[in-house]
């Protein structure tokens, strides 16, 4: 059973009097525990697609099911609940909360979204910080970390609530090549350890080679699907 399934997905934006079609009938499916990249140039529709999979945006037409839920039917409140329970996010700019420590940033989804009990929460946060190699930096604030460290924390935060799916929009765009490579290796390791599906967007050809399945988007259309030799 597919984790994500899209059929004839269309997304149209209105910019003033002009209608812009960001996605023009896209079909794809993503299997559980896979490591998937959407690649393509800027404006090809990668971020739009990830936003819709993440229930942050609704399709204009077509069908999009995530974990067998038709995401088009979710209102903002139930969308937030669905994201909190099933989807983790990793952002290009890390987007850690600056007033919280590393520990508190990772703890945030369990504390403010899912309300885990303290002891269980503590054990889970420490487990994730250990897994991403940031346990010794737990008391630091984001402004005391390097870019790679921030992204490790962001990955821990995305995984802490044990989601089925992690969406990463250009997760390595603000990292140098070596750090980007290590972050991708970490994401793969997390996938292996937790069985989480990772879907990320990139237009960096060196990074896209690490994906096991690559969907190429161009001008709002899916050009091809390629199984990488990493699979």
């Amino acid at each position, binding site marked *: 059973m597919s984790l994500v399934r899209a059929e004839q997905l269309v997304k149209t934006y209105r910019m003033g009097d002009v209608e812009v079609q960001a996605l023009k009938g896209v079909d794809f499916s993503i299997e559980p525990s896979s490591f998937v990249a959407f690649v393509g140039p800027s404006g090809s529709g990668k971020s739009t697609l990830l*936003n819709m999979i*993440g229930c*942050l*945006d609704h399709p204009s037409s077509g069908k999009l099911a995530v974990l067998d839920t038709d995401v088009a039917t979710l209102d*903002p*409140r139930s969308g*937030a*609940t*669905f*994201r*909190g*329970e099933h*989807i*983790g*996010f990793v*952002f290009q*700019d890390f*987007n850690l*909360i*600056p*007033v*919280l420590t590393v520990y508190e940033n990772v703890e*945030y*989804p369990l*504390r*403010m*979204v*899912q309300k885990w009990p303290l002891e269980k929460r503590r054990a889970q946060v420490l487990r994730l910080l250990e897994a991403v190699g940031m346990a010794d930096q737990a008391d630091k604030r984001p402004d005391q970390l390097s870019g790679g460290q921030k992204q490790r924390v962001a990955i821990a*935060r*995305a995984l802490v*609530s044990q989601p089925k799916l992690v969406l990463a929009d250009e997760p390595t765009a603000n990292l140098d090549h070596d750090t980007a490579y290590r972050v991708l290796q970490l994401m793969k390791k997390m996938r292996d350890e937790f069985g989480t599906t990772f879907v990320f967007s990139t237009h960096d050809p060196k990074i896209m080679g690490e994906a096991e399945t690559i969907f190429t988007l161009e001008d709002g259309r899916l050009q091809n699907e390629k199984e990488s030799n990493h699979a």
Partner: protein
Amino acid sequence: MLDVLAIASRNLLRYRRRTLLTLLLIVIGMVAVLLFVAVAGSFKAMMVGQFTDSVLGHLQVHRKGYVASIDNLPLNLNMSAAMVAKTEEALKANPLVETWSPRIKFGGMFSNFAETTSIRINGIDPAREAATVPLLPGRLIEGDKAKPLVERGNILIPVLLARGMNTKVGDTVVVVATNRDGSVNGKTFVVQGILEGVTGPGGRDGYMHIDDARALLRMSDAEISEVAVRLKDFSRLGQADKQFKQTLGESTNKEGKQTIEVHTWAELSPFANLARMIDLMTLFIKIMLVSIVLVSVMNVMMMAVFERIREIGTIAAIGTPPGRILSLFLAEGLMLGVVGTAAGIIFSLAAIFGINVWSPTFAFGQQQNLVMAPTIAAGDVLAIAAMVVAVAVLASLQPAWKASRMDPISALRHV
């Protein structure tokens, strides 16, 4: 809730200078309002106390129509013995009443054998008058304070009259008065004391014993002009007034006409308007405080939302429900209000304590060297504090609502 407060406090500390400036505004506003309420309230209480405890009493009972003609001190509108008895019966039965004092008020001529002038006189029972208006004995600026307030054959005269007529304690004077029938009678009195004048009705009257007044006016019946009433608790004046207006105010004569009327001090003194003016000024000062808190907190919260748009997008994207985002920003407003209010109360109470230690004096009307002793009721402090905290939360509502309804995609794209 504690989680929300913990994060809200961190966010407030993120912009320390801005938070401190906002808190400072709230503190200044709180101190200004609480000080004003304390000083104005004390001034009002002192002023009202001067009227009620020196001259008027808390309530007065008259024959119907007397107050409308009070400037003439009409003897034909005195209360009959039957009315007095009915009044005293009602006063005795009411547990709110501490004591009362019957008075005969009349106008006459005052002569020191060299000059003559007009005088307004209260015929009083000295002990009951001193109990009903306890500040009256303290107004004696010349004369023996150990003696009863005024003994038979003696008179107390106001200081302005004493100066104008060059009259001293121990001098013999003549008081001439016209009685109800129009006949004139005169009687000699010894000046027992000189009274400090007070602002307001009756503040420059002379006093003699009620029996002397009856003799001077050749009254055969136990009639009186008014009954001044003192309550046990001044704050229950409204309740007592209502009760007496129902019991005494409804008494009628054979023709079915109202015979007795009851008035509070405020209905008898034009200075009640001054007290109302103080209340109005207090209201305006409170409105100014509300405006200061509203504008400063709203400004800081709008800035907070604007500066944290991407952060709001992030927490919304990772599943924070809109209601939780709303509460995060409301909590910041709440904390600004609570901390500002707490600091404001501390500084205000310190300032009030400081003024009480300093004890500045001021003049009110003819009274000099009145000591300013501001006090504030705990209820007033709590009401103003609750108002400030509520306004701070209210001011955060619009920015918080905006944050909670923000589109996560647009917020995450915000630069």
